[in-house]
């Protein structure tokens, strides 16, 4: 499978610190996949995210995006265009005074001509279902809506990858679903690669692959079904198991005959109602 991002043996020290935040991390991100990077606070997952679009540069090793290298000054802007990032706080990444001004911000930075800008804004705002809000101001929007505007701002730049850096952690449940559904559709229908950084394992269930970060190192990598069976690993990484998994294990301990532990609520319900 073709790689869109390659992280090669990356070690990173924050200025003035003795211990590295990332220790020899190597990671391939495939084109079109949904990759979840999970880990506890301080596991280095957010630092890793900022490596992917060159907001931070590796102390050792290298990060390649498509044919570009994040460490090269000539490549950095193309890297940032290709890898869009949605941050945690919906308010603190809203630059414009209205929805369309905010979506335009990235395009203005890249010197896109005005007519093209208007076209791309209208198109990308429709892709996240916010076309009715073009002239709204940020304080009139909910958290989930602001995050969708942030996604539209990235889409307008024609990216290959969207990185969600804890993008749903400050949202209410409805906002969370809004954002995840929007991103899932982009991932499935348009083949945009999604990397979601999260400590919420429920969110990681949507992923094609999961990477577990622990103390600045990659502790495990695999499909969600495999990763979530490794309970001890997840526990030692400080992660809480998804509810349906915990419930199915508790049921099995009580002697309910389930043939495996189920990851999603739907699978579990399906297995339960078939029981004699």
């Amino acid at each position, binding site marked *: 499978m073709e790689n869109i991002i390659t992280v090669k043996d990356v070690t990173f020290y924050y200025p003035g610190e003795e211990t590295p935040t990332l220790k020899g991390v190597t990671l391939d991100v495939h084109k079109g996949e949904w990759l979840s990077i999970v880990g506890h606070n301080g596991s280095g997952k957010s630092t890793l995210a900022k490596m992917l679009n060159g907001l931070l540069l590796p102390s050792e090793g290298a990060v390649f995006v498509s044919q570009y290298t994040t460490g090269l000054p000539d490549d950095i802007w193309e890297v940032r265009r290709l890898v869009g990032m949605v941050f945690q706080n919906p308010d*603190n*990444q809203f630059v*414009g005074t209205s929805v369309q001004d905010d979506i335009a911000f*990235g395009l203005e930075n890249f010197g896109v001509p*005005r007519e093209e800008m208007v076209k791309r804004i209208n198109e990308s705002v429709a892709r996240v279902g916010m076309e009715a809000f073009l002239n709204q101001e940020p304080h009139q929007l909910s958290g989930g809506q602001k995050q969708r505007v942030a996604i539209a701002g990235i889409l307008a730049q024609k990216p290959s990858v969207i990185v969600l850096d804890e993008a749903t952690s400050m949202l209410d449940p409805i906002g969370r679903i809004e954002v995840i559904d929007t991103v899932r559709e982009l991932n499935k229908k348009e083949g945009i690669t999604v990397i979601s950084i999260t400590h919420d394992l429920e969110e990681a269930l949507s992923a094609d692959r999961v990477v577990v970060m622990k103390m600045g190192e990659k502790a495990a990598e695999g499909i969600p079904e495999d990763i979530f069976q490794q309970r001890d690993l997840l526990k030692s990484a400080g992660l809480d198991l998804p509810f349906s998994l915990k419930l199915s294990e508790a049921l099995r301990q009580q002697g309910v005959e389930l043939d495996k532990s189920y990851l999603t609520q739907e699978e579990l319900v399906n297995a339960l109602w078939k029981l004699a």
Partner: protein
Amino acid sequence: MLQNVIIGQYYPASSPLHRMDSRSKLIAAFFYLFIVFLANNWVTYGVLIAFTAVTISLSKVPFRFLYKGLKPILLLVVFTMLLHIFLTKEGDLLYKAGFLEIYEGGVIQGIFIALRLLLLVMMTSLLTLTTTPIDITDGLEHLLGPLKKWKLPVHEFALMMSISLRFIPTLLQETEKIMKAQMARGADFTSGPIKERAKAFVPLLVPLFVSSFKRAEELALAMEARGYRGGEGRTRLRALEWHQRDTFALILLALLTLSLFLLRN
């Protein structure tokens, strides 16, 4: 309460003045500052007053909004008027009581100065009443653009302004939230002597200050992630459009200037 907060004193309406390009309005207001000083007799002041009155009525801004802008300077107007009335000793003596002497020239001079101040403030308030702050920012950025050659950070200044404008409602919301949190724990912002009330605001300002720093840091990161690298090579979504009416307005102003020149003493 914050759902429809209006920043600055913009009065939303649809008038020829509202539809004018912010650049022409800025140029006109700036120019007006100078030509007001050309008036020096009843006729020229009459012309200016007529011009200003017509402009105000065209703007569809109710007078009480203009009055709000005038209130803070009324005291200054009255003071300078009195100063002129008592200190200018020209023309016929009108009144004398002890050391107080009021001359005709002083009265006229006092009225002129007061008129001048009132006209100035009314015209400049009209600018901010009919133009949104963001449009004023855009207009200023365009007009001051040539100064970039002398290393004046025009783009940075404009961006700073627009980010401030964007964050005003956000910070207001946050202030309200912190205030409620403090009130829930027994803080009292509304009663007691001024000193106590001022003190009560410290626990409000500190968290607000801290969070502003955090916001600034995160916003900077988000801006960089979206490819921000200064004003060089940037295009703009907000286009200012210069219409015929803008040219027309400036021509009108030029004619006003000319007539002031011809009619003044």
